[in-house]
């Protein structure tokens, strides 16, 4: 069992498994207080990672037509229009007779310290990189779909678009599926990191709402940022996922939010499901024993 509920906030077996190749843990600090909703992150991500177009839908939900993270959207900018003041103190707050604020947040895979997707993956396709990030190996994934409901944030999904012709040399005609069939998610631009570049979304962000760097340093910077916003009288600044003691051991990609997480479509208290797995295996063992005893008891009354 991979030290599931390790209190140190460090991913199981990482970085020991990498020895000399280990790198500092890298991540994102997404500061929503400076997000302007330009969606440059969404576009840069799609371009760099060659993510297919999957339909253009008008939702009528503010400026958001992406709606959710999924196999074909690894960054998603949420837009929330609220009758709430942006500032609680100061001159600007006093002028705000009819308050209105427009919250924008660029959501992404959280690259959890204790990642449910990685734990439950039965093929070993999902793995932890030398940077401490969580990545799907697409040449291993067989599309079992277990990671999809395991993720507490609903990040992963199966790609249902047509597969490329040269993509499956071993396809069996009888079982041949016409769709891609694998799961996809943010890789924190593993290829760019390997080459010493920052991820495409962070590179494209014009306001530094998406900041890339070493996780320890990002956390420090984020705490200072919250203090500053509080001092300036902002309404509701808080960090989400910066605490190494939370239910997933802290996020590799965490956020500064201006309202409750659920307002942005984020779970208020996410917990990695495998934290309860030792207890669940015990239950399974007891249920198995009960079945054996029950079956034996059914023989007590004789043949008739």
């Amino acid at each position, binding site marked *: 069992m991979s030290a599931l509920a390790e209190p140190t906030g460090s991913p199981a077996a990482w970085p020991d498994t990498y020895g000399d190749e280990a790198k500092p843990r890298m991540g994102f600090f997404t500061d929503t207080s400076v997000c302007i909703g330009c969606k440059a992150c969404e576009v840069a991500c799609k371009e760099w990672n060659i993510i297919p177009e999957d339909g253009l839908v008008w939702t009528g939900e503010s400026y958001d037509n992406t709606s959710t993270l999924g196999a074909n959207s690894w960054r998603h900018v949420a837009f929330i229009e609220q009758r709430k003041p942006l500032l609680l103190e100061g001159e600007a707050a006093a002028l705000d007779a009819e308050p209105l604020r427009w919250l924008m947040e660029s959501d992404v895979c959280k690259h959890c310290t204790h990642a449910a997707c990685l734990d439950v993956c039965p*093929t070993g396709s999902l793995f932890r990189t030398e940077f401490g990030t969580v990545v799907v190996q697409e040449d291993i994934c067989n599309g079992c779909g277990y990671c999809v409901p395991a993720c507490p944030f609903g990040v992963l999904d199966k790609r249902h678009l047509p597969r490329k012709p040269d993509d499956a040399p071993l396809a069996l005609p009888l079982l041949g599926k016409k769709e891609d069939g694998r799961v996809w998610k943010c890789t924190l631009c593993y290829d760019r990191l390997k080459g010493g570049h920052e991820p495409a979304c962070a590179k494209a962000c014009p306001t530094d709402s998406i900041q890339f760097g070493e996780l320890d340093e990002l956390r420090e910077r984020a705490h200072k940022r919250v203090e500053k916003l509080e001092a300036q009288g902002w309404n509701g600044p808080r960090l989400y996922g910066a605490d190494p003691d939370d239910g997933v051991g802290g996020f590799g990609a965490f956020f500064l939010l201006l309202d409750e997480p659920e307002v942005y479509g984020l779970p208020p208290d996410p917990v990695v499901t495998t934290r309860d797995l030792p207890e669940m295996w015990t239950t399974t063992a*007891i249920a198995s024993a009960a079945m*054996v005893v029950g079956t034996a008891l059914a023989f007590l009354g004789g043949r008739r």
Partner: protein
Amino acid sequence: MSTSITHVGTEMQSYYGRPIVKEPVWQPEIPAYFFTGGVAGGCALLHGVARVTGQERLARTALYVGAVADVISPALLISDLGRPERFHHMLRVFKVTSPMSVGSWVLFVSGGASNTAAVLELFDILRPVKWAAEVVSFLAGAPLATYTGTLIADTAIPVWHQARKELPFLFGASAAASAGAATTIFMRPREAGPSRRLAVAGVAAELGLMQAMEHRLGFVGEVYKQGAAGKLARASKLLTAAGGALLAMRARRSRGAAVAGSALVLAGEVALRWSVFRAGFQSARDPRYTVIPQKQRKEARAGRH
């Protein structure tokens, strides 16, 4: 504006009412497998005990029924994969953190053992090998029948994860009832006693467990009263109760009653698996089930500090 939903005295906000966790991408093959895997696991146990107690006809029937279920099961699972031709990637690692990895190995071992034993029984050859295969099949039987409960409990789907104490028992009881009913069909009433009693006991245990699970789930469990999951849960209770009663009261004397009762129980068990499966989708679709228990947990924690 973000949508406000009021429920059980809790004001809750959401992002345009959109789900937070993703619905599973599993197809109907998966609940079908929960059923066939249950039949295979239950039959492995029936077979083993029947062999030890010298009830040869029952032992053989359970062995053959279980072997057939053990062949259908992996076919269903492979068909559900997004990349069926990569099914063998399931066997490139063994991960105790993944109930699907553990389950793949259990099914691999169980299916290999029960089919080896069945073929050797059919041709009456290599007896020592057959006995070894029978022992392995017996040992893999109960884990095969119960791990599927833990498989779905080990997700972020509220109605599954919060039922983690009940699901392995519920699936084990359903598997016992399925195996009992499936073997009763092929047996003469005067030799089907253990099968019949296993089916009746399985149904009784399952009805009680279902009740306990819904009760303990509280408002998260209300999906078992709504939509497809609700209809299937009601159908399952009616079918298994009727089938169980018929088996308990009439099937000892009448072959017709035995077959009818068994068919009702089997139909009820299929409905049960489908109900639990659909409940997961309904639970994922509504953000209330994700957000409200988490907020309550957060508030309780804050209150303690």
